[in-house]
């Protein structure tokens, strides 16, 4: 089956845009709703990120703190994440 080259190019461009958008999409998970001041501090701390299209979600399981996901990257600043790191550290100790 032969695909129309223009259609192929458009589809490729569309998919690349989507991937680019997804890669730059910022998702913030927090235990409670973040205030304006906290969002401002976040914007300052992570100035490289595109905060204009950020999605804020509530996740009680993280206890406190935040988890930032950008594309495939994750910054875990939650208490649950700290406990998980502590657990890993304890497992590594003989």
């Amino acid at each position, binding site marked *: 089956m032969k695909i129309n080259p223009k259609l192929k190019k458009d589809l490729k461009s569309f998919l690349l845009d989507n991937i680019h958008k997804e890669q730059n999409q910022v998702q913030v998970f927090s235990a409670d709703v973040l205030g304006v001041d906290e969002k401002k501090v976040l914007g300052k701390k992570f100035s490289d990120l595109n905060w204009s299209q950020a999605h804020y979600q509530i996740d009680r399981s993280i206890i406190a703190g*935040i988890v930032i996901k950008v594309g495939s*990257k994750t910054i875990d600043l939650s208490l649950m994440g700290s406990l998980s790191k502590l657990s890993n550290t304890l497992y590594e100790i003989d």
Partner: protein
Amino acid sequence: MENLGIDGKLLLAQIINFVLFFILVKQFVVKPFTNFLNQERKNEEDKDKLLEKLKKSEEAGLEAEKRMKEKMKKEFDVLFIQAKKEAQVLRGDLIKQAESDAQEIRDKNKKLLEEEKSLLYREVKDKIIKTSLMIVENTLKESLDESSRKKVTGTIIKNYQGKIEIN
């Protein structure tokens, strides 16, 4: 002779009688008896010779038997010493093999014991970590109210020094 009271005829008859008697005795008594005696002597000599021969043969047999016994004893001694040496070598080999096997079993058991110990240690450690983290997690969930959580979140954000790189 008649004056002397000797009867010539009678004397002659007696002489003839004596000669006849002598001849007859010699012929039918003395000769067979002598032959018998000679035969007996000869038989006795033959018997003695045979006995001597038998004795010599017996002595030779005994000597041969004695020599054979001595030879057998020597061979037996040699074989016995050789067998003893071989048995000692075999015994040594068996002891070495047994010691080696025992050491192998000890090592294997030690290794198994170490593995069991390590496994038990990991299991206990895993349970302790999981239980401790569960206790901490539940305590934090129960003890932190909304304002505390917000305070903690604010502090975490403010204190964060890392940086994220977006390609």
